[in-house]
């Protein structure tokens, strides 16, 4: 999947699927309200030069702690907020220049499902009205839009005869999230951004919704951008995984590489913090200590070095570049440990034990 700016010479065996979405050097800085008088304005670098691409029909999972910029990335891609820098290429077309009708059409092709199933539904509309709203905006006659809405509700497992005229508060969290999925599908989109879409659901309901998402993806050839802090769920749904830390991508690759052969201490710490389903694989390795550093003044060099068990002097001097892991064409990581020329004393040792 991923092709960072220094385009990798990786061979494309069997012809890789074309990317549906390519993101280049995406940046978003939020001004921080200063408390005193004067003083220089400060910025939070919420998203600080992010590159990635998502192949058609695949799922890219974005993981990281809260505040790492994954949700901001999603909102930037959805153009819910303007980016400060960077470019988006969607289905071969640059998105930044989209205005008016073009933007409206782009919006149709890219939909989003939010975490809070209640806050994402208008409490004054019945769920059928909510699902039908999008197509109506795009010119579908009211009766036809309602008919489609009912069919979609049926498809996501909500019997339209019983549910179509319900209000959101009459539904359970899982049912509401099905409505949100139906609303996204009503536009017949190509890309669906799932921003912590199952995070608020009970485990059993979560599994049902994940199954539904998998079915819909196969059925409609959807591409997902799946944002989550839950590594189990990401493992289940994703084809590729991207790990973010303080607004930057620190590791990315095919899901089995990330979960099997981690090339970054942060990812490793994240994975070890998750209690494994298999008791034999539970580790004693220390989970992440402390909170992420203040994103207003990130540490020099590698941003993870304050919390990294293997940090070394070189990590403070130079920020590691996102670079291909030797022998794994689609696997990239930003860590001096992977680069024998970096000057890190432990560099080049077999990383994943």
């Amino acid at each position: 999947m991923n092709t960072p700016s220094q385009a990798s010479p990786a061979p494309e065996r069997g012809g890789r699927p074309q990317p549906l979405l390519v993101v280049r050097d995406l940046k978003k800085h939020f001004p921080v309200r200063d408390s005193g008088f004067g003083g220089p304005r400060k910025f939070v670098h919420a998203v600080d030069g992010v590159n990635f691409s998502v192949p058609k029909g695949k799922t890219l999972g974005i993981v990281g702690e809260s505040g790492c910029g994954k949700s901001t990335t999603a909102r930037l891609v959805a153009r819910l907020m303007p980016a400060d820098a960077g470019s988006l290429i969607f289905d071969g077309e640059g998105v930044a220049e989209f205005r008016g009708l073009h933007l409206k059409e782009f919006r149709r092709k890219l939909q989003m499902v939010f975490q809070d199933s209640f806050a994402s539904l208008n409490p004054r509309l019945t769920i059928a009205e909510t699902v039908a709203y999008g197509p109506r905006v795009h010119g579908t006659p009211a009766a036809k839009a309602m008919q489609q809405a009912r069919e979609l509700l049926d498809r996501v497992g909500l019997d339209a005869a019983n549910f179509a005229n319900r209000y959101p508060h009459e539904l359970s969290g899982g049912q509401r999230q099905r409505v949100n999925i139906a609303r996204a599908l009503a536009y017949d989109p190509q890309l669906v951004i799932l921003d912590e879409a199952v995070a608020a659901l009970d485990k059993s309901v979560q599994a049902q919704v994940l199954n539904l998402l998998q079915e819909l993806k196969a059925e409609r050839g959807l591409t997902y951008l799946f944002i989550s802090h839950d590594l189990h769920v990401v493992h289940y749904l994703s084809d590729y995984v991207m790990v973010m830390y303080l607004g930057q991508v620190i590791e990315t690759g095919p899901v089995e590489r990330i979960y099997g052969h981690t090339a970054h201490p942060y990812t490793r710490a994240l994975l070890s913090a998750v209690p494994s389903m298999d008791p034999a694989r539970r580790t004693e390795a220390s989970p992440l200590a402390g909170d992420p550093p203040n994103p207003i003044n990130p540490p020099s060099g590698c941003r993870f070095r304050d919390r990294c068990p293997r940090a070394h002097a070189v990590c403070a001097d130079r920020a590691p570049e996102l670079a291909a892991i030797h022998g794994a064409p689609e696997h990239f990581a930003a860590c001096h440990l992977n680069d024998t020329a970096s000057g890190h004393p432990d560099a080049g040792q077999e990383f994943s034990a």
Partner: protein
Amino acid sequence: MSATLPLPSPVAVSAAQPSRSYWAVVWRQLRRDPMALAAGGVLLLIIAAAVFAPWLAPADPYKASMIKRLLPIGSSGFLLGTDELGRDLLTRLMYGGRLSLLMGVVPVLAAFGIGTAIGLFAGYVGGKVNMVIMRVLDVFYAFPSVLLAVAISGALGPGLSNSLIALTLVFVPQVVRVAESVTIQVRQLDYIEAARMSGASAFSIIRVHVLGNVLGPVFVYATGLLSVSMILASGLSFLGLGVKPPEPEWGLMLNTLRSAIYSNPWVAALPGLLIFVTSIAFNLLADSVRSAMDIRR
């Protein structure tokens, strides 16, 4: 297949129970609230007496009689006595409701409309436009509302329409503040983001998604203003800034009957009692509306 997945048991869903819209639920709650029923009943009675005064009232509200001045309550032919010009008090109280209710309700309605529009605009647009609008309105907050009402209608001069303008100007900033803060809250909700993802115009989003959710809290606030407005409106008339004599209006009647407090005190107090009853009924109804609308957003 999803059809084979067991659905999580629905919270309140059964095919037999029909679904209700938010306002239908509120209405049903209100009808079950004894306080709301009592307050609403009293208000209906007062409104009916005012509206149907020409048919119900026993006498002519303007017909004065020098020999029948200040008759006590229970005089023959004058159930509630007569005023300082010998006019039937019951008749004048019934007619008085027309102007008093008008003066109390119209400014709130006007402020509800104008304030919601400005507040929605300011809150949805946000940024500098919002800041400018809200800072300008802050100035009106530097005036206590009674003083502002008196000052504006004092400057404009006495009269019905000037009092209505003055009261509307007092309430608009308050309604704007509520509408603006609710709009800002609503605007941040995910369903607005979802609506923006549809590519819909700002107008469509405001109409379909914002307005319906802002209207509720603003409505609650506005119902709370009714009681204040009744007291202020009649107060302006009491000061001589509202309706002019010989029109029947409760506040003005209270003023002109003041000279009678030594000779016939309870007759003099009657118009004020009606202002009080109306105001308390509005207040209780507003409380009921607030709790009825406090149901899961």
